[in-house]
């Protein structure tokens, strides 16, 4: 189930039942979007925009409507080519998010990918809290064949970050990946700890290209929007890694986040192996949204 080969089939079945653009048609569209976790607000906005266009362009056929809608979401979700510049520059990437979403796994996958591209990679184990977090990341570092710093349970994560940044500079590392502990965005202390880590990187390595990637579980509902907003408050978000997209969830909340917070999805996680990380493809993503 790692590829999404049954994508295209779905879209047409959605629209085929309608011969006119009427309330039922719009309602069905709304249902599909909401079932994909896009949320009530974003869905209403998307459908309103569509209605406007239908009126302005005098569209009569449901099929034309479908194309319009798909194109507009695709365009919205499009990622700039510059989004991946950090892969080629000297950069520090902090990977953040709530508990269990796939941060450590994504760090491992990203390390493997960058290493394959010939980059010199270093991993910092700044989750010193969760049981065996360091062991888990060490296993990923070994799979990716890159060195790792830190990982002692109970150590101060900020000091791990400090050490790692300085090691990265001293060793001439291209990309430093920082794995952080899972934390819920409503935990004040833990969020302040993250702010501090972010500041240390800025201060210790001002010339580095900075990325803060928030990892969101593709299965998550409306709370992911709050997560993105709150994490963005303590560390500027530069992108999303949307994980567990090999399941049946559609990850539609990313659309709401893109429209409200303008944070693009950069990668998707499609499994538990090291190669299961893909650059985000807006066409495939939107097609899958309509696969019912």
């Amino acid at each position, binding site marked *: *189930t790692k590829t999404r080969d049954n994508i295209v089939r779905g879209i047409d079945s959605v629209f085929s039942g309608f011969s006119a653009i009427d309330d039922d048609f719009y309602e069905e569209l709304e*249902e599909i979007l*909401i*079932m*994909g*976790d896009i*949320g*009530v607000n974003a869905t209403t906005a998307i459908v309103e925009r569509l209605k406007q266009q239908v009126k302005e362009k005098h569209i009569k056929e449901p099929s034309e409507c479908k194309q319009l809608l798909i194109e507009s979401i695709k365009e919205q979700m499009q990622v700039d080519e510059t989004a991946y510049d950090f892969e080629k520059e000297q950069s520090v990437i902090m990977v953040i998010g*709530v*508990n*269990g*979403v*796939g941060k450590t796994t994504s760090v491992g996958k990203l390390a493997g990918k960058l290493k394959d591209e010939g980059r010199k990679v270093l991993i910092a184990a700044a989750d010193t*809290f*969760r*049981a*065996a*977090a360091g*062991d*888990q990341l*060490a*296993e*990923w570092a070994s799979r990716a064949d890159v060195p790792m710093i830190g990982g002692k*349970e109970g150590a101060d994560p900020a000091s791990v970050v400090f050490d790692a940044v300085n090691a990265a500079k001293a060793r001439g590392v291209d990309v430093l990946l920082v794995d952080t502990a899972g934390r*819920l*965005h*409503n*935990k004040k202390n833990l969020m302040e700890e993250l702010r501090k880590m972010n500041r240390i990187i800025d201060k210790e390595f001002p010339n580095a290209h900075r990325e803060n990637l928030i990892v969101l*579980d593709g*299965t*998550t*509902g*409306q*709370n*992911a929007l*709050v997560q993105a907003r709150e994490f963005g408050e303590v560390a500027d978000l530069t992108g999303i890694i949307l994980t*567990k997209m*090999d*399941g*049946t*969830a*559609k990850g*539609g*909340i990313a659309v709401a986040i893109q429209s409200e917070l303008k944070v693009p999805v950069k990668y998707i996680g499609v499994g*538990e192996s090291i190669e299961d990380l893909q650059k985000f493809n807006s066409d495939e993503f939107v097609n899958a949204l309509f696969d019912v």
Partner: protein
Amino acid sequence: MAFESLTDKLQNVFKNLRSKGRLTEEDVKSALKEVKMALLEADVNFKVVKQFVKAVEERAIGQDVMNGLNPGQMVIKIVNEEMVNLMGSETTEIAMQPGKAITVIMMAGLQGAGKTTATAKIAGKLKLKGKKPLLVACDIYRPAAIEQLQINGKKQEVDVFSMGTDHKPAEIAKKAIAYAEKNGHNVVILDTAGRLHVDEDMMAELQEIKETVTVHQTLLVVDAMTGQDAVNVAKEFDEKVGVDGVILSKMDGDTRGGAALSIKAVTGKPILFVSMGEKLSDLEQFYPDRMASRILGMGDVLSLIDKA
């Protein structure tokens, strides 16, 4: 949050209403539109919302408005009753085997849901009740899964059984139960790997455990932040493996947890516990009525209704 504002919205809907007699179709419909939105914002599954709203509508139209309530509150009262109806009003305990017999509990769920943490938490709870639990490392895939369980077991001062990563989970479970019999353990908790409900091989692995040993309770751990897909997950786990109860994790967040309602509506299985944090003592009894007002965001109105 949309939570608080449902009360306001409903008050607005009924602001211009003078009638105090019976709920008219129009009253009910406009109120339920707001309720529907609130439920969707809380991540209750769309289909469940539709069914639910229909049931409420049928019951509410023509009902007498109780003294002391306005029509909006009356609708909410019915909504709440229907919701408690659906969620059940009683708390449920894990069913234990009688006497000295060993109770075997198997944890199951998607990746990262909180199974390993919940395994250790439940062990702690049972230990307090005088049981002697054994934790079993049946996750042979996730890097450092065994170490994680061992560390948590140590913190809880309960034994952890593992055979490394080269044996099948069913075989590990079997050996663990033999070990438990020999060493006087009366509860065995199997921590299994996270898996997708659509992953046939991995789902078959859980079936194999159940065919190999007697599992008395299969507990599905579900992240409270799960969106519309929660119903698919719960249904598939129940159909393919059989689920006896649900644990709702990460409820210390600010999600409204509509997944709870969806899962209950689709599987009918009781929610046993809510997990409220990363500390191993953060496991609480599940109270359906509290969950109902959390999903609806109507705590204040409910207490008002109670007084009426």
